């Protein structure tokens, strides 16, 4: 795949990300002092993840994109919160949405979803109804359990029959 002209792309493997980013940030020639974005990409249910960092330097006209490849079966990546504190929320979001674990992150918990949520929404193999049925509230919320839907309530005629239906069903 091509990439846009004003970005330079570098692909590395996930476990070297701290070393690479540190060099990029600290070397005075390179001077990539600003972490513009840290994102995660899922390439498919059988493919790998990618953690993508975009960096800005005042010495280079282009953005730098560092693509760190992460194994799907064992998605561990070292954290870069030691280099940029502001990466903490990015990493929390990547964990929450993709399930990528960052080793060494002091606060790796969900940021958008509720703390007891059990799947990772932005993965390509995420299916909402399955997930809901599997959630801890299953059995209580009728919309998530089709066998509990009372189709007779959808009829035009309302009347005492409605309550009788509700009482009679089990």
């Amino acid at each position, binding site marked *: *795949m*091509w*990439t*846009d*002209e004003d*970005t330079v*792309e570098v692909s590395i493997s996930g476990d070297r990300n701290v070393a690479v980013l540190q060099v990029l940030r600290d070397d005075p020639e390179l001077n990539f*002092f*600003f*972490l*513009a*974005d840290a*994102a995660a*990409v*899922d390439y498919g249910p059988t493919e790998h993840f990618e953690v*993508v960092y*975009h960096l*800005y330097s*005042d010495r280079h*006209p282009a*953005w730098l*994109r560092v693509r760190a490849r992460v194994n799907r079966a064992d998605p561990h990546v070292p954290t870069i919160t030691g280099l*940029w*504190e*502001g*990466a903490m*929320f*990015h990493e929390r*979001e990547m964990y929450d*949405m993709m399930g990528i674990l960052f080793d060494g992150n*002091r*606060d790796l*918990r*969900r*940021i*958008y*979803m509720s*703390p*007891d949520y059990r799947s990772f*929404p*932005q993965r390509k193999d*995420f299916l909402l109804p399955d997930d809901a049925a599997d959630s*801890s*509230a*299953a*059995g*209580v919320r*009728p919309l998530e*359990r089709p066998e*509990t839907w009372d189709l007779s309530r959808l009829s035009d*005629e*309302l*009347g*005492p029959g*409605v*309550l009788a239906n*509700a*009482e009679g*069903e*089990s």
Partner: protein
Amino acid sequence: MTSEVKIPDPIDLDRAEEARLRRVAGLAAQRTTPAGEYAGFESVGLPELPPQTERERQVYTLEEGEMLVNMGPQHPSTHGVMRLVVKVRGEVVTDIDPVLGYLHRGIEKLCEEATYTTVLTYVDPMDYLSTMHNEHAPAIAFEKLYGITPPRRAEYIRALVVELNRIFSHSLMMGFLALDMGGITPILYGFINRDEIVDMLSAISGQRMLFNFFRVGGVNWDTNDEFLSRLGTWRGNVLKNVEMSERVMTDNEVFRARTIGMGTLSGKDAIALGVSGPNLRASGVAFDVRKAHPYSIYPELEFEVITQAGGDSNARYLQRLAEVKQSIHLIDQIIDKMPHGPVQAQVPGIIRPKPGRAYAAIESPRGLYSVYAISDGGPTPYRFRMRDPSFVSLQAIPKLMPGRLIADTMAVMASFDPVMGGVDK
């Protein structure tokens, strides 16, 4: 249909529903526990929470004399729905844990199923006070993917509405800053400023807040007479209006006492935290995406990067005031230089860019707003990632607040101008 239809009382329906659910879950039909407990949890148990992280332990362990105060998702003065768990000792804040996600709408995932043009409507309500910027970045990214450049007039119109948006977003921020500290007037002046601009933008885009204006390849409509006449009137009044709001706040002694020296963020800390935009420039770092990595027609406009020294709330306020004036100056240049021509390139309704990756970053009123889009050749993006500046700026709050009073929490947060739509996507 009988002539007498008895509509059951909703309360009866609820009770019948609850009884049936309880039977389904295997419980007795009537509750015997006190009101307030959810029916059914006895059978499935309460949710298991994951183990506490190190930082969570740090925040939620209380020492002698400390208390957790919840500035809950419903605040009277809020920038959206956000929960701040504040650990206080008396009036002094010792730690803060922001809890986000109350406004999470899954926009990134939704956009993977939407065509490129539809994506531009989905991103509108992210950072709902700077809608044009929300649309600008994806438009640039998709144009890079598709390989076209919008016509010159379209670029100029884009820059015009984007700067207008910046002005009214900053006006609102100044109003909210005062409102969070108890001043009830500047917010109304801010809304007066906003209303004039929004009326203008509704003449050109048909909407007052979530302008669905940008398209891949240009903008949707050209300027019309009403827009131009309102623009003229507005331009005649704006400096006076800005000065009116400025007079109530800038030299206001109490306002200065509340903002000078509060929430001081050094330039180094700001860069480490990822803060960008006016917040970063108020800490002295001259980083403006429009100059650092110019996009659109900004290379042709003359302006300088304004910074303030100090990095406190007052500096952030002054920075935004200065940027409003700078934007007015930019708008003057844009109006002078606007060429004639088409406003949209010839682009099919559903575009299918070739597979590739594109990154586009713009300067939104809150900072660096960027879009990373991956196309797989189909009608919808494969991955659509937005980096919102408020999301990242929010991390500054737990760093700045410990040691300060609760009253400052709201004031400092208002000076960072987060908008929860952007934070929660």
